[in-house]
C-alpha cells in the first residue's frame, strides 16, 4: 500500500538551535534575547516539539491499551504502534504487519511482521511479542476498550507464533474485519515482558519521563523503521484550561495544541498561529429509546428527525465546523450509505403530520444532556428546544452533571445525548446498535438488523458484505433511534514554526503523528 503522504515535508533542514519554552516566546516576539538564557535546561541544546494537550489529570496513563484522556492518546500514538494503521483519509495501510491473510470463514488471521522493526530498547519485534500483546488486549478480566467485543471470541490457546515473524490469531466466531479493528491506535504492540512502569514500544518516540496531569517527555527512537522523527524530543504538556492553552500557543511556549476553541479559528491567524481543520467521523447524537413511549412509535422518531434543522445546529452549536449528517454513522466506511439515501431536512409540516398520525400532537419530552457530552452537546440541546417548538413539540432540557449523566441512569435516559469518535460502520454497530452492545443508548433491538450485522461479521466477500451492511443501514435510516445531525470537524492549532501538519480524519493534530512535524527557527 501507499506510503505516508503527510511525511514528505519540504521544509528546510532542521536547525539545532531550536530554543525551548521561553526561548520560543522570545523568537515569536522578536525581542529581548536575554530571556533565552532563562530557558536553559538539561535538554536545551536539542530541537524539541512541544504539544499542548487538552485535559488530562491524575488519571493520565501510559498504558498502550487503555488511553483515557486526550494527552493519553497523544502519548500512546508516539510510543506504540498497532499491526496496521490508518492513513490520513482513514483507510488502512500496513504498519508493523506487512501482509495479512485470513482463511475462508475469517476465523484464522495470519499476520506477517515487518523486518527491521526494533523496540525502544533495541530488541527486534518478534511474533512472540505480538502474541503477548494480543493476550494483553484480550485479557478476559480487562480487555482493551476497542477490543472488548472481539476479546471473548479469541481462542488464546490456539493463537500462536508460526515462526519468528508470523503470528496467527484464531477466533471462535468469525470476524471479517479483524484487520480494521487491529488498526486502532489503542491496540499497540508491546514486548512480551511489557511493564507499564517501563513503557516500551516500537513507536517513533521513546519514553523519558512522565508526570500525570502535567507533562511527558519523550525522545526520538533512532531505530524507528518508518520516517524517523525530525525533532530530537517531544514534550507533551497537559492543559486544564482553553485560555491557558491558546495563550501558550500564541506566546510560543507550545508548537501545537489540540481542540482549539472553534470561535478562535480565524482570530489566531493574526497572531502567529494557524488553525488546522480536519474532517472527522465524530458525532454527538440525540438518542431516543425505541422501547419506550413515545419513541416506541416509529413515526414519532421519524418526526423528531424531521424537526431538526441540521445546518442551524452546525452553524450555532459547532461554530460552523461540521458536515450535515443523515442519521447514519461511519461516514468514512466505504459502505457508508448516508450520502446515497435522501438527505433528511427540516420538514415541520411532515413532522406534524407524522405526530398527528401517531396521536402525539402536543408531545412533551425531557431531553437530558451534560457538559460531559463534549463540544456542541449542550448547545445543540438548547437549540433543539426552539426547533421542536415549531412543530408543537415541547422539549425540556435537563443539564446533568457528568457523574450523574454517566452514572446509574446512563443508557436508561429516554431522550438524551452521547458522543462517539471516528469509527467504521461495523465496529460502531457492534458497539451501539445490538442487544448485546455495551453502549446501546436507544435500546435498538431489531431482529432483521441483528441478523444482517451478524452475517456481515462473518462475511468475507467484500461485495456481499457491502450488501448486508447497506441493508442494515437502510433499517437504521428508517427505524433507528439516533438523530445524527452532523459529523464534527476537528479544529486544532499550530504555530507558524511548525510544518508537516496535515488534516487527518482519525484524530486531532494530524493524528498526533509528531514524528512527521518539523520545527523551524524563526
Amino acid at each position, binding site marked *: 500500500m501507499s506510503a505516508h503522504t503527510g511525511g514528505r515535508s519540504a521544509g528546510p533542514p532542521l536547525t539545532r538551535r531550536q530554543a525551548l519554552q521561553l526561548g520560543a*516566546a522570545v523568537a515569536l*516576539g522578536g525581542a529581548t534575547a536575554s530571556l533565552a538564557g532563562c530557558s536553559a*535546561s538539561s535538554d536545551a541544546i536539542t530541537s524539541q516539539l512541544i504539544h499542548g494537550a487538552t485535559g488530562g489529570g491524575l488519571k493520565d496513563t501510559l498504558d498502550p491499551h487503555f488511553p483515557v484522556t486526550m494527552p493519553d492518546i497523544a502519548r500512546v500514538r508516539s510510543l506504540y504502534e498497532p499491526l496496521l494503521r490508518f492513513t490520513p483519509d482513514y483507510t488502512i495501510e500496513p504498519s508493523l504487519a506487512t501482509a495479512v491473510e485470513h482463511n475462508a470463514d475469517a476465523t484464522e488471521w495470519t499476520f506477517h511482521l515487518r523486518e527491521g522493526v526494533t523496540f525502544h530498547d533495541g530488541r527486534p519485534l518478534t511474533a512472540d511479542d505480538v502474541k503477548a500483546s494480543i493476550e494483553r488486549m484480550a485479557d478476559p478480566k480487562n480487555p482493551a476498550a476497542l477490543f472488548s467485543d472481539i476479546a471473548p471470541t479469541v481462542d488464546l490457546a490456539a493463537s500462536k507464533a508460526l515462526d519468528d515473524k508470523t503470528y496467527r490469531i484464531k477466533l471462535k466466531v468469525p470476524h471479517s474485519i479483524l484487520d480494521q479493528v487491529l488498526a486502532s491506535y489503542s491496540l499497540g504492540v508491546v514486548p512480551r515482558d511489557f511493564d507499564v512502569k517501563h513503557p516500551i514500544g516500537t513507536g517513533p518516540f521513546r519514553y523519558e519521563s512522565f508526570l500525570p496531569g502535567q507533562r511527558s517527555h519523550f525522545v526520538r527512537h533512532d531505530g524507528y523503521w518508518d520516517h524517523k522523527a525530525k525533532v530530537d524530543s517531544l514534550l507533551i504538556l497537559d492543559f486544564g484550561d482553553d485560555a*491557558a492553552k491558546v495563550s501558550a500557543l500564541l*506566546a510560543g511556549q507550545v508548537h501545537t495544541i489540540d481542540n482549539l476553541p472553534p470561535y478562535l479559528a480565524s482570530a489566531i491567524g493574526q497572531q502567529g498561529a494557524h488553525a488546522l481543520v480536519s474532517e472527522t467521523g465524530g458525532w454527538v447524537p440525540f438518542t431516543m429509546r425505541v422501547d419506550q413511549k413515545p419513541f416506541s412509535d416509529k413515526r414519532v422518531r421519524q418526526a423528531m428527525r424531521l424537526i431538526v434543522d441540521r445546518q442551524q445546529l452546525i452553524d450555532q452549536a459547532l461554530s460552523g465546523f461540521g458536515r450535515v449528517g443523515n442519521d447514519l454513522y461511519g461516514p468514512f466506511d466505504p459502505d457508508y450509505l448516508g450520502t446515497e439515501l435522501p438527505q433528511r431536512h427540516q420538514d415541520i409540516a411532515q413532522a406534524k403530520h407524522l405526530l398527528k398520525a401517531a396521536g402525539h400532537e402536543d408531545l412533551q419530552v425531557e431531553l437530558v444532556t451534560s457538559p460531559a457530552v463534549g463540544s456542541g452537546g449542550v448547545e445543540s440541546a438548547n437549540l433543539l428546544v426552539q426547533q421542536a417548538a415549531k412543530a408543537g413539540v415541547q422539549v425540556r432540557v435537563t443539564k446533568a452533571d457528568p457523574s450523574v449523566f*454517566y*452514572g446509574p441512569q446512563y443508557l436508561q435516559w429516554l431522550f438524551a445525548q452521547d458522543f462517539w469518535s471516528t469509527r467504521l460502520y461495523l465496529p460502531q454497530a457492534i458497539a451501539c446498535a445490538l442487544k448485546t452492545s*455495551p453502549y446501546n443508548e436507544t435500546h435498538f433491538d431489531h431482529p432483521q438488523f441483528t441478523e444482517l450485522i451478524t452475517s456481515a461479521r462473518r462475511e468475507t466477500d467484500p461485495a456481499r458484505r457491502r450488501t448486508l451492511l447497506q441493508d442494515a443501514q437502510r433499517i437504521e435510516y428508517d427505524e433507528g433511534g439516533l438523530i445524527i445531525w452532523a459529523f464534527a470537524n476537528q479544529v486544532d492549532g499550530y504555530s507558524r514554526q511548525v510544518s508537516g501538519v496535515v488534516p487527518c480524519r482519525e484524530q486531532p493534530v494530524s493524528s498526533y503523528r509528531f514524528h512527521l512535524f518539523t520545527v523551524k527557527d524563526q
Partner: protein
Amino acid sequence: MSTAASHAATPAPSPEPDRRDTAQGRSAGRAWTRWILKRLGLAVLTLWVVSLIVFVATSALGDPVRAILGKDFAVSPERVAQIRAAMHLDESLPQRYWIWLSGLLRGDLGTSIANGVPVSELIGAKVANSAFLVLVVTLIMVPLSLGLAILAARHRGGPIDNAIQVVTLALAGVPEFVTGILLVSLLSTSVFHILPAVTVLPAGAMVWQRPLGLILPVATLVIAVVPYLARILRSTLVETMDSDYVELARLKGIPERLVLRRHALPNTLVPTVQVSALQLAWLVGGVVLVEYLFNFPGIGAALVDAVRNGDFPVVQALAMVIAAVYIVVNLVADALSILLTPRARTEMVA
C-alpha cells in the same frame, strides 16, 4: 477593626513592658507555653472535626466507583470490584473512617484511585508550589497594601487618596481571572512578548526554578488581593487618626509624620495581620481559576481534577491540607496580634 486593637490604644509607645518582661521572664514564658498548648489543642480538635466533615462529605457524594469509571462502569465489573476493594467500600462507614484516620495519623495519605500512586507523592510538589506562590504574594501584598493605605490616609481627601481609592475600587471589582487574561494578552501574547504565558516546568523542577513564569501569576494574585486589603487598612488608619489620643499627640506638637508612624500605625498592625491571614488562607486553595489560566501546578487545580475524577483519597488529603493551612495561619495571626497589642501582651503575663 478588632476590639483588641481599640482597647490597646495607649497614647504613647512606652518601653515599660520590655523592662517588666525581663523581671517576669519565666512566668511570661510559662503563660505563652500554656497559651500555645491550649491553642494547639484547639487546633487539633478543629482538624479532627474537619476530618469528620471531609470524610462524611466525600462519602455522601454518591458511589465513587461510578464517578471514577463513568461510561465504563457497566462494562468492566472486574475493575469495579478492584476499586471497591482498594477503597474498602464493603466496610461500614465508621470502619472506613478509622482506616483513613489511622493512616492519616501515621502520615499515610492513602493511594490515588485514578492512577494508583501514593497521594503524598502526587500532591507533595503541588503543595510546595502553592506554598511558594502564596509566600511570594504575601511578601509583596502586605508591604504594598500597607504602603498604599498610609499614602492614602496621609493625604486623606487629596488627589493622591482619591486616585488610590478609585483605582483600588475598580480593581477590586474585576475578577482575578479577568486581570490574568488582560495581563497575559498585554505581556505575553498580543501586545508584548516578554513574559511566558503559562508555567512550563522541566521534569522534577519546582516553580521557583522558573522565576519568570511566576511573574504573571503573582502579579494577578497581588492585583486581586491588594485593593481589598489596602482599602480596609486605609479605613482603619483613618479611624485611628481621628481618635482622641492621636489628636492629643498632634496638640502636643508632634509632627504629623511621627504621629502617623509612632501613634497611629502600631494600632493598624493587628487588623493588617488578621485580614492578611484570611486572604492568605484563601490564596492557598481558592485560586483555581488563576492556576488554570497559567497552567500553574498548584493544589487548587489538583483538587478540582480530583473531584472530577472522583479520586476521593486525593480530595480528602487536599481538603485536610487546606484546613490545616487555615488553622495554622490563624494561629500565627492570633499570636502575632497578641504580641503587637501591649495590653493583650501584659494580660497574658498577668
